[in-house]
């Protein structure tokens, strides 16, 4: 087990404790692991020599409970308020969700627009190059060729970054989602 895995498991087990106290306990264990590793122990050994996550969590929770550092459970009044406040908090929550989704979708629309613009420039450029053969004079044909090449070049030059941005945003989507969920869970843990 790695240090991160141990601390992650411990964090999960310490959920009944108030957030500030939980962070202090995690910092303490993180420091102990770092000190063991600095003493020359490999990460795996440093962790295996620690007590099990459940044993450690049990003791810390028992101590926190004795000191009144456990998270308060929802009282009956809070539940009643939550139910009665439904007509107020639900539309608000929905609005926030819609705004967040719109902001997310807006970025996709901008990326889509950029892609469309680049494709239009490339297609328009190609059409202008073909159009040169149907122009009446040589001078018009050269103008068509020039415009066509510039337009097609811009199209290709824009298409690649637009595609890269789209890929990066698609990859960032689960990270954004994760961040939003963690923020929400983190706040509700307070």
């Amino acid at each position, binding site marked *: 087990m790695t240090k991160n895995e141990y601390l992650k498991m411990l964090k999960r087990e310490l959920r009944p404790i108030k957030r500030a106290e939980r962070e202090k*306990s995690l*910092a*303490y*264990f993180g*420091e*102990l692991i*770092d*000190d*063991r590793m*600095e*003493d020359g122990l490999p990460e795996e050994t440093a962790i295996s020599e*620690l*007590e099990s996550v459940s*044993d*450690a*969590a*049990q*003791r*810390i929770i028992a*101590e926190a409970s004795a000191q009144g550092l456990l998270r308060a459970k929802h009282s009956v009044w809070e539940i009643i308020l939550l139910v009665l406040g439904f007509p107020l908090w639900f539309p608000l929550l929905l609005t926030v969700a819609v705004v967040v989704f719109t902001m997310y979708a807006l970025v996709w629309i901008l990326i889509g627009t950029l892609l469309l613009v680049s494709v239009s420039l490339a297609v328009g450029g190609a059409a202008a190059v073909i159009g040169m053969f149907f122009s009446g004079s040589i001078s018009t044909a050269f103008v068509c060729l020039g415009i066509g090449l510039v337009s097609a070049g811009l199209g290709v030059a824009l298409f690649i970054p637009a595609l890269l941005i789209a890929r990066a945003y698609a990859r960032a989507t689960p990270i954004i989602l994760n961040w939003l969920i963690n923020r929400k869970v983190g706040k509700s843990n307070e």
Partner: protein
Amino acid sequence: MDTQLKRGVLEICVLAAMRDEDAYGYKIIKDLSPFMEVSESTLYPILKRLEQSGCVTEYSVEHNGRLRKYYRITQTGHERISEFLSDWGSVMRAYNFIRGDESNDKK
């Protein structure tokens, strides 16, 4: 060992571990290991209690790019050790009494 007794003795041992110089969690566990087994989760609440009772103070020092928490014994902490040592005489008398009773029973 009885939990209460062990806890009391452990607190004094932890204080004694930082008597000569300020100590951090892992150092305390290592220094005490030849005399007493202390787990990480046992030490943590002891340090907290000692701090709350004013026997130790804590401060953080940057060490190898991270923060390490050090504990320093206060005057109250030193007095607590002295009290424990002076009380120990009566505990030993009780201990000898208990031992004597047991050996009398066996006879």
